[in-house]
């Protein structure tokens, strides 16, 4: 036993393992490939999964985990009836709704009414198909958005209906490609608005949905439908022809939203509550007081409860379901569940490829054992114990899967980089994923090495020596 523990023995058996693998370089390399790709795919798949869910969670977090967003949605039935009955379709959340919510739920901290209008924004020759958000002065706090430059408009400016605006970062990039816009003006329609600040991009629900779809298409069925479509509806189609091309392509909701924030009072005054929209040759007018209100709840625990109460309040006063509740916290939980399923599925697929790699190793080791039967006989005759033979072959498998695992980690760290670079998909490599992948591959080496090694050790030395 002392003999067995001798450091020389270990050093030599490892050296011997490397040597005999090196002797059949190509075979060893090919055997290793299974493990290399297995480990690499585990790491890469986990990185893609983590990346996708990270983006989704970040976007949801941007919506605010304490917030409940109530959006106005055009009821689908209205459209057909409207032609004969009335000019303007009235729907959505009203001032009364906001007041009711504020007064009947004690926990509600702030109610932020928003109007969302789509219009072309101009800066001299640059133009952009923007989303104008008429809102209140405490909007950035609720949404937890950072002011990057300048300031947000004040309560006073809201009260006095000032023509000021704050631009989102991506809007700046399109509208003011050279230099800071603060102090300059943008034109919307016939009105000029002074730019007073820049704010970071908001978690857009359109992007969110895109990411979610990307993660798992079946899951998106569970999500509140039409998250982005509802508010984009007003005035969208008639822009399509004139758009500068960068605005939107194909699907709705997938294009980035270029946001500009103005005081809600200004929005109401300049744009009114009635929107005209042309589509398919007909004129449609619609009247919406608020496109969206944001309700901030005191603590996260109460969010779901408050959401239910709001829903009940609104249900009582709305004949149709012309509003939609979006609860970011719920989405966040859903995203987490999705991520778990996603990781499980990806992990399983990758583990299967690792398993296949392990079987490949076992196959080759069995062939090697047969091929080296005589060597085993010689070693046994010269005094090798069974466990020496087991160790010798087990070490070879462990080296194969260990080196394969390391190469796989290298490849696995590189693939997400390529994915991010070429497919511009976010990827995140967690510390534990290479460790787990390597652990699994080493484990596979041992498990799949045991049988061939035992077979080698249990050969009858006399038979083995006679083997040609």
């Amino acid at each position, binding site marked *: 036993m002392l003999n067995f523990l001798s450091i020389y023995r270990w050093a030599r058996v490892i050296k011997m393992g490397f040597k*005999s693998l090196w002797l059949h370089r190509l075979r060893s390399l090919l055997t290793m490939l299974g493990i290399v790709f297995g480990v690499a795919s585990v790491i890469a798949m986990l990185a893609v999964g983590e990346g996708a869910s990270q983006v989704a969670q970040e976007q949801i977090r941007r919506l605010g985990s304490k917030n409940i967003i109530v959006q106005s949605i055009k009821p689908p039935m209205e459209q057909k009836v409207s032609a004969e009955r009335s000019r303007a379709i009235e729907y959505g959340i009203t001032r009364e709704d906001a007041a009711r919510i504020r007064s009947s739920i004690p926990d509600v901290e702030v109610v932020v009414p928003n109007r969302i209008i789509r219009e072309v924004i101009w800066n001299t020759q640059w133009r952009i198909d923007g989303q104008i958000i008429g809102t209140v002065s405490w909007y950035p706090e609720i949404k937890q958005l950072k002011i990057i430059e300048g300031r947000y408009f004040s309560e006073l400016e809201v009260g006095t209906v000032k023509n000021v605006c704050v631009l989102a970062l991506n809007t700046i990039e399109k509208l003011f490609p050279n230099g800071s816009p603060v102090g300059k003006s943008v034109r919307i329609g016939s009105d000029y608005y002074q730019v007073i600040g820049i704010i970071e991009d908001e978690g857009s629900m359109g992007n969110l949905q895109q990411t979610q779809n990307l993660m798992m298409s079946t899951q998106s069925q569970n999500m509140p439908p039409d998250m982005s479509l509802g508010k984009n509806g007003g005035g969208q189609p008639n822009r399509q022809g004139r758009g500068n091309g960068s605005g939107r392509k194909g699907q709705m909701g997938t294009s980035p939203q270029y946001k500009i924030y103005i005081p809600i009072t200004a929005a109401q005054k300049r744009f009114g509550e009635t929107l005209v929209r042309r589509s398919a040759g007909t004129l449609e007018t619609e009247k919406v007081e608020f496109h969206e209100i944001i309700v901030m709840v005191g603590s996260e625990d109460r969010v779901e409860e408050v959401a239910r109460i709001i829903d009940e309040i609104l249900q009582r006063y709305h004949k149709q379901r012309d509003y939609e509740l979006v609860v970011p916290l719920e989405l966040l939980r859903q995203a987490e569940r999705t991520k778990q399923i996603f990781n499980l599925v990806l992990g399983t697929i990758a583990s299967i490829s690792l398993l296949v790699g392990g079987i490949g190793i076992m196959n080759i080791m069995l062939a090697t054992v047969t091929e080296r039967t005589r060597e085993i006989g010689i070693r046994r005759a010269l005094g090798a114990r069974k466990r020496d033979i087991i160790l010798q072959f087990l070490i070879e498998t462990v080296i194969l899967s260990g080196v394969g695992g390391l190469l796989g980690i290298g490849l696995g760290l590189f693939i997400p980089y390529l994915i991010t670079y070429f497919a511009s998909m976010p990827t995140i490599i967690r510390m534990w994923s290479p460790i787990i992948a390597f652990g699994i591959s080493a484990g596979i080496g041992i498990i799949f090495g045991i049988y061939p090694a035992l077979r080698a050790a249990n050969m009858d030395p006399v038979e083995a020596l006679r083997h040609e």
Partner: protein
Amino acid sequence: MKDCIIKLERLKKNYRMGLVDIQALRGIDLEINEGEFVSIMGPSGCGKSTLLNVLGCLDKPTEGKYYLNKYDISVLDDDTLSDMRCNYLGFVFQSYNLIPQLSVVENIEIPLYYQGVSPHESRKKATEIASRVGLGDRLYHKPTELSGGQQQRAGIARALVNDPLVILADEPTGNLDSKSGREIMNIFSELHSLGKTIIMVTHDEHIARYGERIVRLQDGLIETDESVQLRIREEIS
């Protein structure tokens, strides 16, 4: 009187080949003293290989007793048998049985490796033994780069490196031409004169007469066990 290092008592060995039981050894009584050079002869199928395997602790007897250096081999477990081979026995094979991917010196080192000798020390010892059998300049060659005679010398060096109690040789000249065969046998004679105990299986009368005692087997039993006259031994050499 030299010590008796090998003692067989009514030793029997049966094994199964397909459906038939074969009685390879049917009751062997044999004593071999330290320093003896014993040739075991007999026609093929007489059980001489089986006997050598049993003597070499590669196989256990079915019945009877085998004492090697006073240890009762028939009761030892597999690991202890390995240790017996490792410490007391040296094997020389007909087909040399060198491991092809290892160099000459590495092949010679193998028994020391299983004894747990340090790499430095084993290299020193293996080099020394290799020089003694005339392979001093072939240490780092692969076995396939050597002639048959040289390969067998490496085989002998490997059998000597652990300083065994008994050297077991199975037709050591079987694959060699007569000149190389004579050279190999001279090495055995020299080892014998140095006091090594050698047991050699052969079917060649001339080779057998290098030994001082010839045991003839027939159908798993000892037929004759006679000392070779010094005169005859000189005659053939």
